[in-house]
Structures are given as structure tokens and as C-alpha cells.
């Protein structure tokens, strides 16, 4: 194991420690908070902040497995459609008389199957990039959601279901607790298990990983399936939060999720990045949105800001360190 140093676990130096991207994020995060506080007096309020957290955490569940996918050097743009499909199937089944707990399980199952199909296609047809495969499935999953529900909304779930999105345990939102649990699980999986090391290895050099005995296909399928599962979890919380569902829910989530992951310092070239960065980015973008929303910045302007933030996050590391490395052409 010692010879396979994949991340840069070099000698500890204080300067290097603080020059990491994650510290940059912490600084930006503090900056955003200071900016928001000066913009609105209602920002720095425990109840407001707590409730804002509940607003953006639903998509954060997808961020966790998306970190794995981007470390692999792949991408999955079908996640928003998977959310819509799982949510619509759940609502449809419930309204057809299926008991809610079973519908919830099916919702998760639908997400998992969607993810599994993505993974299978990406692995079986290696000459196709994940971009094009998930582009096609993105249209298909959303298409099935439209076929099932047309332009209707479906809702009227039982009362306990709304606890998922709106409930508190003590004074902490339930969704925050669930997110914390999943975040710890995924961080553990990425950083402390053999599976996580394999993901990094594959992200650095898939061919070398294959020849050193990693079941490349299996790892990839598992990662895509996990993404589908977490899209199902997002569907649960989102549906609960909205109280009803439509085939066009969660449009644009794929962009938000990818923006958060990339902003979190996970390199799109694969093989680099840490879970904590992505989690910081979730809260960074979430609080930015909430703060600017408080002072009535239009949703469209927010779109522009998020888009620029995404470009900025990818461009900055390339500008800074791009000269030392040979350019990757593909």
C-alpha cells in the first residue's frame, strides 16, 4: 500500500496546509457571510439560517456521490431527471393506492435502477463518454416522468411524509441530520476504505488501475448506482418539501450539483479532491443564494452568478498551476 501514494500525502507543512483549496473555501464562505450580513439585517438569525438550510439541502444529497463520479473523471447529468422520475413514480403509485412506506421504498429503488442503467451503459460502451450516455438517459427519464404524469401535479401525501422536509428533531432540522449522516458515510467511504482508494486510482489512471487488478467496471457501476440512490433520497426530501410533484421538478439540479462539486475543488480531470470541499461548497452556494434572495436579487441574476462561479472555480486552478504540468489535450 505504501508504494501506491495517490493523493499528495507529503510531509506536513503549515504553509501547504493553509494553501489548500478547502481553506480558500472557508475564507470565501466567511466572506459571503459577512457580505450577506451587511446586505440584510435579517440574515444572521439562527431560525432564518436553519430554515434556509432546509431549502438547499435536498440537492446536497446528490453532491456526495457526484464527488465520486467526478473523481473518476466522469460526469452524470441525468441526476435531475432521475429525481423527477423517482418522485413522479412515488406520487403516482401512492395515488393508485400503494401504501406510502412502500411507495417511498419504490422511489429509492427507481433512483437506484436509473443510476444502475447509467453505470451499465457507461461501462459496457466504453467508447461512449458518460456525457452522451447520461445526456440520453436524462431525456429518457424526464420523458418517462412526463408520460406518467403529463402536465398534472400529484400530491396529497400523508402527514408524516411532510416531516422529512419540514420536521425538526429538537431544534435541528431533520434533513440536516440525515445529510450529516450521509456526509459522514460518504466521506468515510471515499477516504478510509479500499473502495475509495480505488476510485482515486481509477481517476488518476483507469488503464493502470485495470492492469493492477481493480475491477474497474464494477467500481464504476457501484458509483453510478449510488448516485441514482441518492437522487432517490433527494426526490423524497424534495417531494416532501413541496408537498406535491410535477414532471418538471428539479430542473437544473444537475448544474447546481456539478457546480458545488467543482467549486469544492474536485478536479474535472479526475483523481483529485476531497469530500469536505464539496460539503463546504454546498453551504457556500446555499448561503449565497439565501442571502441574495433576502435582498431580492432576481432568480435569473442568481443563475448568472452560479454559472460564473462554476467557470471561476474550474478556471482558477488551471490558471495558477497549469504551467507546471504538461497540457492534457483530450
Amino acid at each position, binding site marked *: 500500500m505504501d508504494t501506491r501514494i495517490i493523493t499528495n500525502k507529503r510531509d506536513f507543512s503549515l504553509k501547504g496546509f493553509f494553501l489548500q483549496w478547502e481553506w480558500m473555501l472557508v475564507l470565501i464562505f466567511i466572506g459571503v457571510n459577512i457580505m450577506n450580513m451587511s446586505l440584510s439585517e435579517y440574515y444572521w438569525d439562527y431560525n432564518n439560517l436553519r430554515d434556509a438550510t432546509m431549502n438547499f439541502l435536498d440537492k446536497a444529497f446528490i453532491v456526495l456521490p457526484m464527488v465520486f463520479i467526478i473523481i473518476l473523471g466522469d460526469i452524470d447529468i441525468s441526476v435531475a431527471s432521475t429525481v423527477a422520475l423517482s418522485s413522479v413514480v412515488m406520487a403516482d403509485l401512492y395515488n393508485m393506492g400503494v401504501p406510502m412506506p412502500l411507495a417511498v421504498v419504490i422511489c429509492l429503488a427507481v433512483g437506484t435502477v436509473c443510476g444502475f442503467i447509467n453505470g451499465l*451503459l457507461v461501462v459496457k460502451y466504453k467508447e*461512449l463518454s458518460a456525457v452522451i*450516455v447520461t445526456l440520453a438517459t436524462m431525456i429518457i427519464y424526464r*420523458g418517462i416522468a*412526463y408520460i406518467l404524469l403529463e402536465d398534472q401535479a400529484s400530491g396529497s401525501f400523508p402527514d408524516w411524509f411532510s416531516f422529512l422536509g419540514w420536521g425538526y428533531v429538537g431544534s435541528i432540522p431533520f434533513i440536516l441530520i440525515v445529510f450529516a449522516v450521509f456526509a459522514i458515510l460518504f466521506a468515510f467511504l471515499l477516504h478510509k476504505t479500499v473502495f475509495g482508494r480505488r476510485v482515486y486510482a481509477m481517476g488518476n489512471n483507469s488503464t493502470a488501475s485495470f492492469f493492477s487488478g481493480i475491477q474497474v467496471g464494477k467500481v464504476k457501476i457501484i458509483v453510478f448506482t449510488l448516485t441514482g440512490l441518492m437522487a432517490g433520497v433527494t426526490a423524497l426530501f424534495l417531494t416532501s418539501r413541496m408537498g406535491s410533484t410535477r414532471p418538471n421538478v428539479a430542473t437544473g439540479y444537475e448544474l447546481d450539483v456539478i457546480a458545488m462539486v467543482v467549486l469544492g475543488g474536485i478536479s474535472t480531470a479526475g483523481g483529485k479532491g476531497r469530500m469536505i470541499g464539496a460539503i463546504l461548497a454546498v453551504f457556500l452556494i446555499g448561503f449565497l443564494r439565501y442571502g441574495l434572495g433576502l435582498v431580492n436579487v432576481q432568480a435569473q441574476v442568481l*443563475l448568472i452568478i452560479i454559472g460564473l462561479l462554476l467557470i471561476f472555480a474550474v478556471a482558477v486552478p*488551471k490558471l495558477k498551476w497549469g504551467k507546471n504540468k504538461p497540457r492534457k489535450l483530450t
Partner: protein
Amino acid sequence: MDDKGSTMAAALAGEPHANTPKPSFSASIAKFRELGLLVFIILLSVGVQLRNPSFLTWENINDMATNTAILSILAVGMMFVIITRGIDLSIGATLALSGMIAALTVGEFPGMNPILAILLGMGVGLVCGIVLGFLVAKIGILPIIATLGMMNVFRGLTYVAGGGKWVSAHQMPASFKDMATGSILGINNLIFIALIIYVIAYYFANHTRTGRQIYAVGSNPESAKISGINTDKILWLVYAIMGGLSGLAGVLWVAKFASAQGDTASGYELSVIAACVLGGVSIAGGSGKISGIILGSVLLGIMNNALPLINVSPFWQNGIQGAIILIAVLVNAIVKRGVDRNNLMRRKI
């Protein structure tokens, strides 16, 4: 990359007929693909015509052709992007932005020559494309990330430019709207413009040095660079072309539908990519033909027009389109494998 071993093994296991070289095999596959597409289009048309006789009327064909014109103009640009192994998800937003700006301008100056409006739209699109090209070629951001990010920026700018409002038909002068309905030499303007673009693109792709360099960069970026091709310039050029064509399409779109909205053509990039993939443009880069994407666009145009005519619910269209993209991509991959295997066998002798 990883299945090279298995392909090799299969080739070594080799069927006996491997010792008859078939030099034209891949070419014949390529021809077969376009022929196949054509046959499929004809069969589909006949089938729809049997179900609904109003399908093959002059009016409907004209309508379909004008709709397909915009799609195929965009597909030409997208083809060049995909040939360089890129993808552009921002074209729907670029189209909306340039359409919106052109519409606002003609609303403000009703006396403006429509040609100027077209040039203005193309200019806006070109700027968008140049920005993208800069991000992809000079900074080296993955095309999907760069275009995904800029898609939101352009879309947001469209809303901001329009102030959240629509530019509707009565705000546009007649001369502007006539652009989409008028005709040159008896052919509708949109179709005429599309035809001109096909011809230019065909000449550009096949008979100019820069055009061939685009293919070279797509099929092997490293060796293209080593053989002295300025890959950055080519990438930049490709996104600029895509942007300019999106701008043109934006003005035509707004003129045709006589309204410019914040969400104009949202998601249209998927149809354009579908047309390219159907037309045999390989996502892995390096191959794609104008004739292919025209057929791909025509097929999509017919599908969009025909499904409502044979009483398929509009809600099925998304799903069907997605399935077609997936099947086309998979068939591409399988055909490619066959060609590769065949080449390997040929090399053995």
C-alpha cells in the same frame, strides 16, 4: 481503452474469412448508415401518410422544412464542435440571447433593415462563442463544464435583457417578421439560408485546410499538435462558428415565431445533439458529414411534426427522442467496434 485486450483476443481467435481484405468495409458501413437513415425516413413518411393524409401536403412539408432549417443550421455548428471531441450545451441560451437582443433592437428601431438584425444577432452569438472558445481552448476547461456554466450565464442575461418580459409580435415590424415567411427564388428564406450554409459548410469541411484541420484535431489532438496544427486556434474557431450560427438561428427563430421570450429554445440543444448523433457524427470525435446531419435533422423534424399528426401524445415526444438518441449512439458504438475489429483482422495478414 480497457477492452482493447478483449478485441485483440477476438481478432486473434479470428474467423477464417479474415484473409480476404475488404478495404471498403468501413466506407460501405458509412454509406449504409446514410442509406439506412434515408430508407427509415421514407418508411416513416409513408407510414404516417397512411395514418393521416394531411402529412404529405405541400403546406405541411413546407412547415416541416422551415422548422428543420433552424435545427439543421445549428446542427452544422454542433457537428464541428463534436468533431473536435467537444460538446456545446449553451446553444439554446445563446440562441435565446441573440434572438432577444435582435428583437429588442428591431422593436426600438422599426425601420431597421432585417439584414442588419441578422448581423446583430450573429454578432451577439459570435461573442458568446468566442467567450466559450476562450474558456475551452485557452484555459482548458472541459467543454461540458464550460458550456454548462455559460448556458446559465447566457440564459440569465436573456432574462435580464428582456427585463423578464416577452417581446411579442406587435412590437416587431412587419419587415422583420416577413424574413421568415418571405421567399427567394420560390424557396422560403429559412430554407434558402440553410441551403447556403450547407454548401459553405460542405466546402469548408472538405476542401479547405482549416476544415481538414478540424477533423485532424478531433481524431488525434496530440498528433495534430505535433504536426504543427494550432489546436487552440481550431478549438476557438469551432466554438466561434457554433456561436455565430446560434446567433443566426436565434434571429430566424424569433422572426419565425414572432416572439422572443426568456425561455426561448430552452432544451433545444438536446435536439441539435440528437440530430448530429443520428446523422452519424461520432461523439469520440474526428468523424461526421454534412449529408449525415441533414438527414438526422430531417428525421427529427419529421418525428416532431408527425407524432402529433398520428395522435401520439406530446408528452411522449421527450421519451421517444431520448430513446432514439440512445439507440443511435449505441448503434454507432457497435458499428465502430465492428469496423475496428475488421481493421485489426486486416492488419494480421
